[in-house]
């Protein structure tokens, strides 16, 4: 794998870094066609806009949350992909932002990527992440009067169901 040229991946990272020198915290090329970018959470909409308009990443494949209880953080992941730009069609760019665990708030990207609508709702429900500016942030999957904590957090256990 190491022989494969990673110039396209580096080009994307280079463009993002040139545009947002302070917002991009860390970048990583996982392998060919996979790029991970850690960014500062306040810049999510600008970065999304740049990705869509300049780089051609016109949709998100999903929005995921990852709970990191040891660091007291919740990470939000955006899996951006492209249909229109043939150059980067095979890429998945993973944008990651870390939010504080006790008050996870981030701006919604629905105004940029409409495809994030249901994914953000799901992440809100499963991790309690509030997406500010989301047009319709309601519970989606769990019981309609689910009152418990967001179920996907690591320290939430359901002992009555026999979980360890």
């Amino acid at each position: 794998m190491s022989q494969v040229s990673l110039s396209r991946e580096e080009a994307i990272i280079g463009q993002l870094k040139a545009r947002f020198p302070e917002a991009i915290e860390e970048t990583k090329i996982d392998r060919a066609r996979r790029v991970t970018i850690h960014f500062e959470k306040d810049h999510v909409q600008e970065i999304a806009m740049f990705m869509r308009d300049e780089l051609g990443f016109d949709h998100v494949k999903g929005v995921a949350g990852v709970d990191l209880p040891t660091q007291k953080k919740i990470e939000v992941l955006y899996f951006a992909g492209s249909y229109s730009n043939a150059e980067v069609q095979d890429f998945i760019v993973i944008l990651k932002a870390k939010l504080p665990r006790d008050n996870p708030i981030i701006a919604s990207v629905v105004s940029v990527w409409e495809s994030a609508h249901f994914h953000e709702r799901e992440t809100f429900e499963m991790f309690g992440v509030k997406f500010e500016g989301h047009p319709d942030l309601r519970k989606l999957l769990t019981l309609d009067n689910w009152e418990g904590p967001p179920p996907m957090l690591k320290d939430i256990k359901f002992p009555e169901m026999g979980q360890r």
Partner: protein
Amino acid sequence: MTTEPPSPGISISKTAEPSTLDVSVGPQHPGSGHCRILIRVDGDYIVSADPDIGYVHRGCEKIAEYRNYVSNIPHLERPNIADAIHLNWGYVLPIEELQGVVVPPRGKYISTIAAEMNRIMSHLYGLAIMQGVFSGHTTIFMWAFGDRDLFIELAEMLTGARLTYSFLVPGGPRRDLPFGFEDRLSRLLDYFEKRLVEYDRIFFSNPSVIARAKGIGVLKREDAKKLGVVGPVLRASGVKYDVRKVEPYGAYADLEFDIPTFEEGDSYSRYLIRFEEMKQSVRIIRQALEKIPKGPIARKAPLVAPEGEATGRVESSRGEITYLVMGDNSDKPSRVKIMNGSFRNLIALPFLVRNVHVADMPIIYGSLDYWPVEADR
């Protein structure tokens, strides 16, 4: 969302305009279960729709965190039982990437054959129920289900189960092709190709089907890109995007096949695209049976995955499935995230049913081939 979704719950007294009415479709309705769509109608037209899903939400992602890698396979393929092998494969790919295991070529070919058989079965299921029954066509239901059973028999011969195969584990498939399998499969494909012509005559060229589905629920190319729909729904809108081509996995890089696309983006072209894909699947299986190399089928893979994360994706019958698997040096994943076709296509439903007749909603719903269990996980 471009429309204003109605408030949750049925609130007939609180409708926005005096002429509108909120109707709850599901979870028990003649078409299908496990999904409720709250629609607001004005006369015979749908003003807006609000899908209320989650009736089959079983917490797969949470369960995956406290079972180990291999025992996760059975429950992660349950979300789409008609398409089990793709869900299985999508989960196994990132684990193999984390562990650095490379599947031997014969294993890749066997997985490809099984996956394409599964694609045919899944499309036949969709043709029978989602497209046949929903447009009131019972003959195609009987025909497609009868032929699907023939494929199921062969899948049972290969994997040992009718629908829930758990066939791929990290390292490769569980079994080699059984004795006499190739012969039976190629005879079945001969039969199936003849049947496809008859399907065309009875269903796809049927004037009543064309009258019901043509021009209904048009998803334009720009909208399809913007909404991020996947799979047949995307390709019926004219976007040529298929994971088998853009990021070949398995044996797809060695095989020749086309990606059918249509420009119209209406329900009828979404019906047709699955029909064309079945033809391509037949072509792929034929080639794979011819080219399959000799050798080992699987490598030994460790039960533990190192720290790190990997994203793998496959093209299932309902579109691209992306799995994120995070390992933490133990035998259990620390996070599994599933992004599948049904959940991503769900957004097209409220978009498409606006300003259509209530009677057209089943057609549009069926043409999306939405599988509620997959979307809910």
